[in-house]
């Protein structure tokens, strides 16, 4: 053992003296021995990845439009768009519906900068089509909702229609059907306002097709946004107890009377009260709350939900074949001020 050590030390001395200028490395200083390519490739990629994610988080990365890629074929995309949605678009109208006014202005300015004094642009923007589309949607959504929810007061129907035609819903549907890459507009990605206007114009472009097809499109893409939503949340009733009292007065029934059904843990942070609303000893509804006041309010809400048939267990909105045969109702539902239980018995439920 000792002899072996002496031999190695001796050899080191010989090596050191013979090749002094070279760096004295041990055999394991080279990473190649361990099967590595190098000691800097992986750390470099790691650092680049880190910088990339950081820039992405800060929003500094340029967002490339799909149309900037070399194999982009706008005509084919427009054709495929209609086929995906299974509707027939007029090609020119669809192109007009997807053209925003900012894009026309941008093109005109670009041509003027290039020295074209009179740019002969024949493009028209989608403002007219958007107005037409909004009219089509409001003309269908209102009668559809009145027919599907015949006991919902007219105020509720108009609140639902307003919700469906709001910019949030319009732009969400627009993003959902893939308008982001098809819109011709100045900014990218398109702002919700532009997106909403463009979607309305798409519906306006469908106006030329048969009414049934257009209505089915509106129903499947716009009205379907109500599925799973709580109508009571979209249409907020302020002071439900007063509204319930008014309805009972119209129906010639007794005043609503709230009574405590159950309570637990009053002296704790998790107190719970269960309150029922009664009229002429008949239970109209019940609700829970952390205080008596919230429970009373919830109970009144529940009573109204039961009267208007918009509880969680109510029938779902008709779609598909059910909606095709649904007779649309153009005359207004009962208004909230004139709503009464006697009148609601005369309403035909379909």
């Amino acid at each position: 053992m000792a002899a072996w050590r002496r031999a190695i030390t001796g050899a080191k001395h010989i090596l050191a003296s013979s090749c002094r200028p070279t760096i004295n490395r041990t055999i394991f200083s080279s990473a190649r021995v361990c099967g590595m390519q190098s000691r800097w490739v992986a750390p470099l990629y790691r650092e680049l990845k880190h910088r990339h994610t950081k820039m992405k988080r800060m929003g500094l990365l340029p967002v490339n439009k799909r149309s900037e890629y070399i194999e982009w074929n706008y005509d084919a995309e427009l054709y495929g768009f209609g086929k995906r949605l299974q509707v027939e678009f007029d090609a020119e109208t669809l192109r007009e519906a997807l053209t925003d006014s900012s894009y026309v202005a941008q093109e005109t300015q670009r041509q003027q900068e290039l020295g074209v004094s009179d740019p002969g642009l024949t493009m028209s923007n989608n403002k007219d089509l958007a107005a037409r589309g909004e009219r089509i949607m409001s003309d269908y959504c209102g009668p559809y909702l009145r027919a599907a929810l015949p006991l919902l007061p007219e105020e509720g129907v108009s609140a639902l229609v307003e919700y469906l035609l709001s910019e949030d819903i319009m732009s969400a549907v627009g993003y959902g059907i893939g308008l982001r890459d098809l819109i011709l507009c100045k900014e990218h990605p398109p702002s919700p306002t532009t997106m909403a206007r463009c979607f309305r114009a798409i519906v306006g472009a469908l106006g030329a097709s048969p009414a049934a097809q257009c209505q089915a499109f509106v129903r499947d893409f716009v009205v379907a946004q109500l599925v799973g939503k709580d109508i009571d949340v979209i249409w907020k009733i302020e002071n439900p107890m007063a509204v319930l009292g008014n309805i009972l007065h119209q129906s010639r029934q007794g005043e609503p009377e709230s009574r405590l059904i159950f309570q637990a843990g009053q002296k704790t942070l998790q107190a719970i009260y269960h309150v029922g609303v009664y009229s002429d000893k008949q239970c109209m509804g019940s609700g829970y709350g952390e205080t008596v006041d919230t429970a009373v309010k919830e109970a009144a809400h529940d009573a109204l939900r039961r009267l208007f048939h918009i509880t969680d267990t109510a029938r779902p909105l008709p779609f598909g074949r059910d909606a095709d045969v649904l007779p649309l109702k153009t005359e207004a539902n009962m208004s909230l001020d004139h709503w009464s239980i006697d009148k609601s018995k005369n309403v035909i439920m379909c």
Partner: protein
Amino acid sequence: MWHLFDGQWQNPLDAADKIVPYLDGSNKPIFHPLNDSGDHVVLINARDIALPGTEWEKRVYFHHTGYARGATWTLAWQLHEIDPTMIMRKAVYNKLSKNLLRHGRMARLHIFPDDKVPDSILDNISAQIRQQRPVPTRLDHYPQEQVDSFPKIFDWPKDHIIN
């Protein structure tokens, strides 16, 4: 929810079986091991629990202080004299599932040696757990006139002494 359980003349070992589902929430249809759905149980009259057979004399509670010769063995009747809630508490503690939630569930059990419960706790109660053994009415609990008017098969001789 807050439940009341009367420990009067109840077997603490059987009562613990009944109380544990309320503490850990497994009596509810929404029960899941990861959700905290247990209820509070207020146990009164813990002093009047009834251990069966010779359990008062034969049941031994072991404790070790951790020091050398620190082991003690205490009989059930001795422990009950020291702390009338301890037998009930240990019975429930042993029946609860052995995990990190055990102490939190024990904190929802409020044991009182008699029926004197502070109002801050009593006001929360909204349900009662049925006793496993109905408490029979003892002869000395009946009013005297009802005892006297009860039909007798024979009369004791005047000079007979009943102790």
